């Protein structure tokens, strides 16, 4: 059981994030397709959750007392897969089967395909509603488990996302926390060029949510924000995680062309070298 894991030192979390990013690069290179930027950008959020915030047990993925983590932005699942493997949900070797025929690691996550995968996502905008449903069922059963949902910023262009915000805010669904990957890019360009989202914070606040902004690469800030969310009983909480897409690799960072791209041989070598030496941290 994993109830006292918040004691993990920050240096350890940093090194776990590095391992996750190395896995992502290796997986995508092996798969010859996939989405690099968002996955790399959210590695610190994923490791904060699975190594510090969530109450969970890799040995018992369906443990009734676990906290739930649902991914709405399914395309960044390489970060989810890599983190689950790093945390012991399944063998890391299996990561290299990503997107291959017969693999449990589908191109976008599929419920129960792997231990720890709590929902199906891929078409943007669907995850927050699912997480809200889980949160409501926990309230019906008077269970204290918490529900976390990871969203991309781009999927805030989907109407369904706002339908879910509206309901959760109106009904003060306080066991629900949204973590938003605010990396300012989507597949066709910068979010503010495609269809502006700012000010995202004010928009979500207007839906009666508590909104916290953090540096999405600071484990401490992410963990502290989740602790605040837990103590905020009057509203659900959204944590805007300001991230750098492609974090850790110089030529990927802040370049929207890497939203839906994988590294070739040369790019992988350079990426791994930068990650291993930490030259771009």
């Amino acid at each position, binding site marked *: 059981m994993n109830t006292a894991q918040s004691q993990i030192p920050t240096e350890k979390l940093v090194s776990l994030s590095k391992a996750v990013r190395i896995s992502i690069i290796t997986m995508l290179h092996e798969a010859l397709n996939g989405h690099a930027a968002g996955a790399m950008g959210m590695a610190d959020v994923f490791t904060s959750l699975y190594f510090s915030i969530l109450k969970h047990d890799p040995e018992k993925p369906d443990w009734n007392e676990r906290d739930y983590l*649902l991914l709405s932005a399914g395309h960044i699942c390489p970060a989810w897969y890599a983190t689950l493997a790093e945390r012991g949900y399944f063998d890391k070797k299996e990561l290299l089967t990503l997107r291959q025929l017969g693999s449990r690691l589908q191109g976008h996550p*599929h*419920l*129960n395909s792997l231990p720890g995968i*709590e*929902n*199906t*996502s*891929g*078409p943007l*905008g*669907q995850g*927050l*509603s*699912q*997480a*809200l*449903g*889980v*949160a*409501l*069922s*926990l309230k*019906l*059963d008077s269970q204290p488990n918490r529900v976390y949902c990871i969203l991309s910023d781009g999927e805030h262009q989907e*109407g*369904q996302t706002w*339908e*879910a915000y*509206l*309901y959760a805010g109106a009904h003060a669904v306080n066991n629900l926390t949204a973590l938003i990957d605010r990396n300012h890019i989507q597949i066709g360009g910068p979010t503010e060029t495609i269809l502006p989202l700012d000010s995202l914070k004010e928009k979500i606040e207007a839906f009666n949510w508590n909104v916290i902004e953090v540096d999405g690469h600071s484990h401490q800030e992410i963990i502290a924000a989740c602790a605040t969310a837990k103590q905020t009983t009057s509203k659900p909480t959204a944590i805007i995680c300001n991230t750098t897409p492609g974090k850790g690799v110089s030529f990927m960072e802040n370049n929207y062309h890497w939203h839906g791209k994988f590294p070739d041989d040369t790019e992988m070598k350079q990426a791994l070298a930068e990650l291993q030496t930490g030259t771009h941290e």
Partner: protein
Amino acid sequence: MNKKTTRDGFGEALVEIGKNNHKVVGLCADLTDSTRMQAFSETFPDRFFEMGVAEENMIGVAAGLALRGKVPIAASYATFSPQNAMGPLRASVCYSKLNVKVIGGHAGISTGHDGATHQALEDIALMRSLPNMLVIVPADYFQAKKATHALVQHHGPAYLRIGKYGTSTVTNEDSDFEIGKAQVLKQGSTVTLIACGTLVSEALEAAKTLEEHNISTAVINMHTIKPLDRFAILDATHSDLIITMEEHQVIGGLGSAVAEVLAELPHHPPLHRIGVQDSFGESGPGKALLKKYGLDASAVVKLVLSEL
């Protein structure tokens, strides 16, 4: 019309089910009265979620509730849910095989005065195409009641198509209902009418008239569109003519489903599909619309007499 409708059967059954099955939860997109979910919402307020006019979120939330073992029953008009919510139904519900029940009300042209926007005529086609989805179209009040019970006992995604049009009852309290097993309401050797929903009573009426013309007519109530009862269709191939009847587009509905089975056989009798012919409806009384769009008993009789 004072006759009890399929929506009444659904609403009454849901309250019965709710008493014994505490996992059952209701969701509605601001149409509790007209989908007949009102009684459930008043009897079990703790297990009822008023989702507002937000069908995509309603289906997504239903998926989330099902993730933790609840049995969500999500109701709206069929033109809004499933039709507005196909994305979440496909990825969040069907691909995950989640135990979500979708109730589509005001289905068919007999919805009447609200007009084309509110008359669902494509929902069977849409739902039938989704893997893991069950599609049930009850013929009357009694059958809707039994179908609702059966739907909840079945584990997995399911769609129940109901309406507000009061038909003559074609089943009774004691009739059997089994998902996937068509009901032979009348035996006959020359013509087989395969109907669903409100048109089953029209089929029986047509059969009565055809018998007066000495044309032996069978009537099958194909209440389950998916999985389709292939054996019932194979039996029907012994007749000289098969006619399907539905309050739905001829593209993609019951007629298409039957045609798919027949087309794979080496020999089969000709098939005619009674249904809406690739058009939208309009405002008017339900009965008048059924007549105008060639969906009532007289249209079937005319067709059979011209074909034989």
